[in-house]
């Protein structure tokens, strides 16, 4: 089963009425259960693409097909760059917000995911009482708790310090292996892309297009210092520095 994203043209119009194309002729096919990383320079329009897939922005030419074999539309969740939790809801209520079912079902699945991300004991605290790393964990729990078919992630760990980001990446990897959902992960960090993904799409900017589509088959957990990965990293670095 696959989902397809076909963007013919996505442009932003500035105050002077001049349109700038952000994405042009970009086609993506996502296989079910695949971890796809969109790797591209900052400001390339990667977040814009995620917003289109998430349905937050409908102003574009093209088509996004997210229907499942049973005809239903795939459930999408989106982890933003910032945690974006509701400050007036406890951590548990924040996760419950996105779950389906009766209140008690929602509560139990929220508590389940919060314990999986290591937030047992902090469920009834408010976001203002937690550290940045814990907020990211809560946002990660929320992203998984709604049982998404497609999980969109927009540089979710970019604002964390290195050890915290590493442990969250590892956590994400574990959760994803447990619950093989389709992931579209946006980043400009080459090492991060190489350790997490099944498939990396290397993107150009202005307008955004796919430069390379690379499949990674090596076993997880991966060591980014492996020869094969190092060679890929080197190649990506050059393509990103000089998108011919």
């Amino acid at each position, binding site marked *: 089963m696959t989902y397809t994203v076909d963007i013919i043209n996505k442009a932003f119009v500035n105050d002077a009425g001049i349109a700038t194309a952000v994405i042009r002729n970009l086609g993506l096919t996502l296989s079910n259960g695949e971890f796809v990383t969109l790797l591209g320079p900052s400001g390339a329009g990667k977040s814009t693409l995620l917003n289109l897939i*998430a*349905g*937050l922005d409908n102003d574009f030419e093209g088509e996004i097909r997210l229907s499942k074999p049973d005809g239903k539309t795939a*459930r*999408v*969740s*989106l982890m*933003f760059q910032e945690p*974006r939790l*509701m*400050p*007036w*809801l406890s951590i548990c*209520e924040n996760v419950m*917000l*996105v779950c389906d079912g009766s209140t008690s079902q929602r509560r139990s699945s929220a508590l389940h995911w919060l314990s999986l991300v290591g937030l047992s004991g902090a469920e009834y605290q*408010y*976001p*203002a009482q937690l550290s940045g790393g814990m907020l990211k964990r809560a946002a990660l729990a*929320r992203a998984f708790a*709604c049982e998404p078919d497609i999980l*969109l992630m927009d540089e979710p760990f970019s604002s964390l310090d290195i050890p915290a980001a590493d442990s969250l990446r590892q956590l994400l990897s574990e959760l994803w292996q447990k619950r093989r959902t389709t992931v579209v992960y946006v980043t400009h960090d080459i090492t991060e892309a190489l350790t997490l993904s099944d498939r990396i799409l290397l993107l150009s900017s202005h307008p955004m297009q796919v430069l390379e589509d690379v499949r990674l088959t090596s076993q997880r957990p991966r060591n980014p210092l492996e020869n094969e990965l190092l060679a890929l990293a080197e190649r990506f670095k050059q393509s990103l520095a000089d998108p011919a």
Partner: protein
Amino acid sequence: MHSHPALTRMLSMVVFILLWQAAVMLFTPDLLPAPYAVLTNLMGHVDSGELPHHLTITLRRIAISFLCAMLLGSLLGLVIGHFKRLDLWLDSVVTLALNVPALVTIILCFIWFGLNETAALIAVIVNKTPNIAVTMREGARAVDKRLLDVAKAYQVPAGRTFIKVYLPQLYPYFLAAARGGLALVWKIVLVVELLGCSDGVGFQLSLFFQYFDITSVLAYTLAFACIIFALEAGVLRPWERRVLKWR
């Protein structure tokens, strides 16, 4: 004492009353009765049943006009806060309405609608609605679109989005509007009663004014202030604590 704000508030009232009593004892002014005299007078008015009667009428007027003004003002404020074009159209009208003196609205209402209950209520509502609308407009403008995007991206049902994501952003503004609203509405209601009603606290005060009965004026004021105080402490402040506890 610093750890007991409620106690401190009580104490400040006690100090105020003691100062009042001391001033009366020192200067024996003709036009300022002692607190004790006011209290005795108050009991008299309560026992005769006349104060509870007028107080109930006034409180009913306050409740009705306060609720109507909150409802209308919130709706108007949210609508103009979310729709820029409409705001542009209505902005000068709202500014004008804000600046028309309460007395003018009251007189016009009594002239146009007659000296009756409806006119009295309309006068108060028309006076208060613009203030609430302006506060709620600020609230609508401050609504964080990024948080609404979360709800949209996660396909949260509309009702739940409204209650858990949208409304909580407005609570501080509702509170501010309710606070300011209550304070203003009861003052305006008294003026309305003074000018065009034949019952209510405002009407009574105007009678006492004609008889130069200062003790009764103070007794009514005391009863009234106590009730507003109780509303503030018993309803508004607990509500505020509840909805803002996450801070």
